[in-house]
């Protein structure tokens, strides 16, 4: 049954409490839990980290909102801790990276398939093929430096084959900005989708920037440097699809609605009862935030939240394999290239001089992503299995 976010008020903000024991729980099992439990945990960490990032930016620009922003933000901080600390310590940074790319592939595919705006569908599919390629490159890295199989993390839900080659994804800023949705006419799900994917990509960028230097191997250090740069492009792309004329309050309201929507989506398919209980609790907390912000919105912007928010939540994000969908996009859109705001057939239209010059310079000394995956084909149990039997 769909959730009526206008009626369901969740837990009031002043009754949302945590203790350290409460936040630092037993993590999920890397070996025994379903890969989509890991996918949900990672995405929700991204959603929470975006909530905090936005809240700080807003606080710097809106003196009257500082206290209410700080109150909600403090809870978001502890929610994020509770969620992110579910990652198990035996899951290495590279294994977590593989999972981040699975999030990017499967969640973006679900969003692209349900986005009503055809141009934005294209934006998501475009980004999808690039993250899909990152998964292939990182899998090669894991196989070739650690002797581990990325499919132990992916659990056969997501293919490990090339997408749009990472070496060709480097674009000048002029070709990274997209046309934004119109805040007055866009469907509510369009706004929730844009925020969800932007949040996911932003945390991916931040994660790679954080863990890249922990690697000793120069191959890994270069690959993280290269893919982090593409994630920065993706954040630029996805940030640009949101209407810049939305007010600060309008954006805050949408952030809270996105959090409710995402926790609600997680709740629908979670197979681990311990974690399902967390999704339920945080969904109720987010409903509390949403109603707190709805009241503020009425006071500050003097508008009715119902003009922006859907009465009931849209169809949840599908936490399942999108193999067929991704294969179809691969077969039809590998040659697409971005020129300005447009997507063009790379066989018919040249990329901009700015992008070609930028890419040529970056790849002057070779491409880490090409090098790490030179001749690489994923093989069950790593390519060493194939080599040993040759």
């Amino acid at each position: 049954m769909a959730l009526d976010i206008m009626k369901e008020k969740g837990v009031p903000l002043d009754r949302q409490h945590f203790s350290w024991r409460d936040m630092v729980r037993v993590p999920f099992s890397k070996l025994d839990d379903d890969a989509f439990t890991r996918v949900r945990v990672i995405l929700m960490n991204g959603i929470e980290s975006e909530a905090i990032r936005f809240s700080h930016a807003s606080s710097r620009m809106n003196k009257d909102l500082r206290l209410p922003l700080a109150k909600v933000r403090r809870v978001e901080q502890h929610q994020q801790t509770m969620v992110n600390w579910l990652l198990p310590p035996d899951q290495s940074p590279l294994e977590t990276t593989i999972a981040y790319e699975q999030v990017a592939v499967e969640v973006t595919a679900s969003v692209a398939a349900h986005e009503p705006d055809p141009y934005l569908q294209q934006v998501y599919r475009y980004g999808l093929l690039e993250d899909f390629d990152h998964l292939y490159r990182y899998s090669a890295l894991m196989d070739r430096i650690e002797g581990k199989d990325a499919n132990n993390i992916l659990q056969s839900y997501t293919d490990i084959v090339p997408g749009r080659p990472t070496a060709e994804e480097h674009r000048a800023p002029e070709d990274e900005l997209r046309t934004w949705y119109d805040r007055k006419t866009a469907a509510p799900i369009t706004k929730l989708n844009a925020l969800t994917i932007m949040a996911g990509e932003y945390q991916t960028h931040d994660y790679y920037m954080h863990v890249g230097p922990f690697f000793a191997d120069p191959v890994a250090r270069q690959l993280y440097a290269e893919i982090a740069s593409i994630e920065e492009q993706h954040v630029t792309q996805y940030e640009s699809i949101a209407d810049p004329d939305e007010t600060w309050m309008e954006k805050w309201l949408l952030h809270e609605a996105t959090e409710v929507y995402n926790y609600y989506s997680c709740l629908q398919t979670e197979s681990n009862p311990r974690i399902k209980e967390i999704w339920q609790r945080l969904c109720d907390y987010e409903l509390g935030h949403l109603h707190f912000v709805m009241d503020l919105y009425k006071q500050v912007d003097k508008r009715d939240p119902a003009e922006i928010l859907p009465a009931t939540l849209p169809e949840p994000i599908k936490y399942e394999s999108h193999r067929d969908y991704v294969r179809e996009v691969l077969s039809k859109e590998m040659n697409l290239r971005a020129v300005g705001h447009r997507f063009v057939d790379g066989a018919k239209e040249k990329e901009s001089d700015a992008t070609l010059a930028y890419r040529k310079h970056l790849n002057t000394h070779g491409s880490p992503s090409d090098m790490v995956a030179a001749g690489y084909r994923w093989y069950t149990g790593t390519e060493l299995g194939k080599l040993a039997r040759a």
Partner: protein
Amino acid sequence: MGQATDLGMNRTGIGMAPRLSEAMIRDAEISIPTSGGDGRQIERLRREYVHNAPPIGSTPPPATVKGAAKAGMQMLKGQRPSVFLDKLGERLAFERTGTRLYEALIAKFDELGSWDQGPTRDELVTFHNEELAHFEMVREAIESLGGDPTVVTPSADVTGVTAMGLLQVITDPRTSLTHSLDALLIAELADNDGWQMLIRLADASGQSALSRRFQQALTDEDRHLRSVRAWLNAEMAQDLKGGPHTRKPH
């Protein structure tokens, strides 16, 4: 590239900043902790989490019932097959990562060279190939018991965590061949014991054919261990006399 034992400006000790460290020690001595007790409180918290922690993961049943029946899982006399499969999974993961460790080591050797009675390229390549062959041997053993060799068993997972530090040392371009061999020594010591345990498990499970094959792997691993120790001892002896005469292979 200079030797790690060359004298330089290492700033980590208090001896490099006598006045600063004197002030620091004085401040610490007169400071008052804000909570009472001692380090044993950490133990209490750890015990509480250990008490409530589920296992890190499980060993799955054989991939197919048919496979298990045909292949001899029932032949593991009086033993829980999951114990053997768990440890086989550990060896498989270790040998596979070991193969990649030797690749990183060979790259370092090719750039930095070796010393008198140090490793030769042929030896490193031979050891690499033997790690790969051992990986394949374990994979076949798991399949012969009806298991799935692509599974990360709990012991395989834990050994992967243990090996992370070794990978970090060997793949770091700033560490010397000696540092890398120190890390490799840890790997070879663990590997050696791991094979001995696997042979005992095979014997206890009535898997005499597997036990004989594993004995061959142990013979190889014994040679790896002796060699790594000898290379490190030779390097240390020469370092004490003023640095080993490193020769580039090319």
